[in-house]
């Protein structure tokens, strides 16, 4: 499907009845939601609720067990290639090759995604993420914060329309947090985001919609607008006893 008219109302992400089972364990039990283009969805929920699994399905790393999932106008099961081109993922692991330099890592991904202005784009990102001075250093020698920064560069290298973030602020030093937030603010318009996070403050600050997932189901989904304290109450109300935030 292509963008035929300006102002078309096709949601950027459409999930309907998503179920996913691993062996005999049902991790996602019928998740449904939609996110319009330019939206920012913050996803909260206890550990093991299935948030990461959901993100991986959106990224095409996992196939849906049943249900339909459409991202950027394409079905993730029938048509995963265009989805991959349109999506960038920042996840727990940096997805970087430790024995390659920062430059070599980015060059690899640029080639894989077919980024046309490869050299310029790499320069631009290394600069933006304050890693230019480490361009030819092997990633194994990077600190955790630097690795995360490079991972961000990797994720946005191919200018994806949709960004999927799995607890991106985890383990970042304050400088890196600022850089990430700055970057997100910069590309906020016209990009669509799904962010899994435990940071109520950050999540609410950035989000246009908020969702709580518990035990594989969506238990709350609403436009953002409450403050952190009120949301804390909402969370406790919807999540079962004994689940930690």
């Amino acid at each position: 499907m292509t963008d035929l008219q300006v102002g078309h109302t096709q949601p950027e992400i459409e999930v309907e009845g998503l179920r996913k089972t691993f062996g005999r364990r049902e991790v996602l039990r019928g998740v449904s939601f939609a996110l319009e283009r330019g939206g920012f969805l913050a996803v909260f929920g206890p550990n093991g609720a299935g948030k990461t699994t959901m993100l991986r399905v959106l990224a095409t790393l996992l196939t849906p067990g049943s249900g339909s999932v459409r991202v950027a106008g394409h079905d993730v099961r029938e048509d995963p290639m265009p989805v991959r081109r349109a999506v960038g993922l920042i996840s727990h692991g940096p997805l970087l090759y430790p024995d390659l330099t920062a430059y070599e890592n980015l060059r690899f991904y640029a080639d894989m995604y077919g980024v046309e202005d490869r050299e310029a784009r790499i320069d631009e990102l290394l600069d933006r993420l304050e890693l230019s001075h480490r361009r030819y250093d092997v990633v194994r020698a990077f600190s955790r914060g630097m690795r995360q920064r490079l991972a961000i560069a990797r994720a946005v290298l191919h200018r994806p329309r949709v960004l999927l973030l799995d607890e991106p602020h985890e383990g970042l030093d304050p400088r890196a947090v600022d850089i990430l937030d700055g970057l997100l603010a910069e590309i906020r318009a016209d990009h669509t985001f799904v962010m899994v996070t435990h940071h109520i403050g950050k999540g609410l600050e950035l989000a246009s919609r908020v969702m709580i997932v518990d035990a594989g189901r969506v238990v709350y989904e609403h436009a953002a607008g409450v403050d952190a304290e009120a949301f804390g109450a909402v969370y406790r109300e919807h999540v079962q006893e004994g689940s930690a935030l």
Partner: protein
Amino acid sequence: MSATVQFAAIVRKDLIRELRTREVLVSVFLFVMLSLVVFHYAFASEESDLTFFTGGMLWVTFLFGALLGLNRSFAQEKDEGCLDGLLLCPVDRVTIFLAKTAANLVLLLAIQVVAVPVFTLFFVERSYVGDLPLLVLVVLLADLGICALGTLLATISMNSRARDLLLPVLFLPLIVPVLIAATSATTAVFAGDTGLGELAGRLVFLAAFDAVFLVAAYGTYDFAIGE
């Protein structure tokens, strides 16, 4: 973003990584050298004319060396979580397969380029320089089969428990045809009875094996690597 560019990117990435760490190259090479020494002592006796065993010794060594190398190269990918990064890319899974097979092939050949002359020095009496092109052809065709099948199986075993044990258990029975053909062809070259007809038969067989398994891998690799 053509498949060729992606293919080259993956091969380049794997080779750079290997050249920088030399993890696989050095250990497998040492293993190969040590095997030759072990063979000498294992078969040492009064009448130590091992000419008719030469093909066998060489290929047993390369098979086990390849197993070690394959295990290692996939372990790296998996342990560092990089596999996800690769799977996120809009790349055909078959391109990944071909690229990894090619990279493994290059590494195997790099080891063989040194190992075969050393082996010749230790065990082969006849000068087979005239038949060298034939030997090269045998080695290339056998290597292709080993790497294609090995890459497919290593992809499966990398996602399983006890992957170091699983790969040989699956790989060795399947590679027996290659072992048979390559061994007899190599011995023929080393011993000097290169009846062209017979040798040609072995070569055709190896080529056919390679073709069949490349097609099989093409059809099944999506399932071996994805979820």
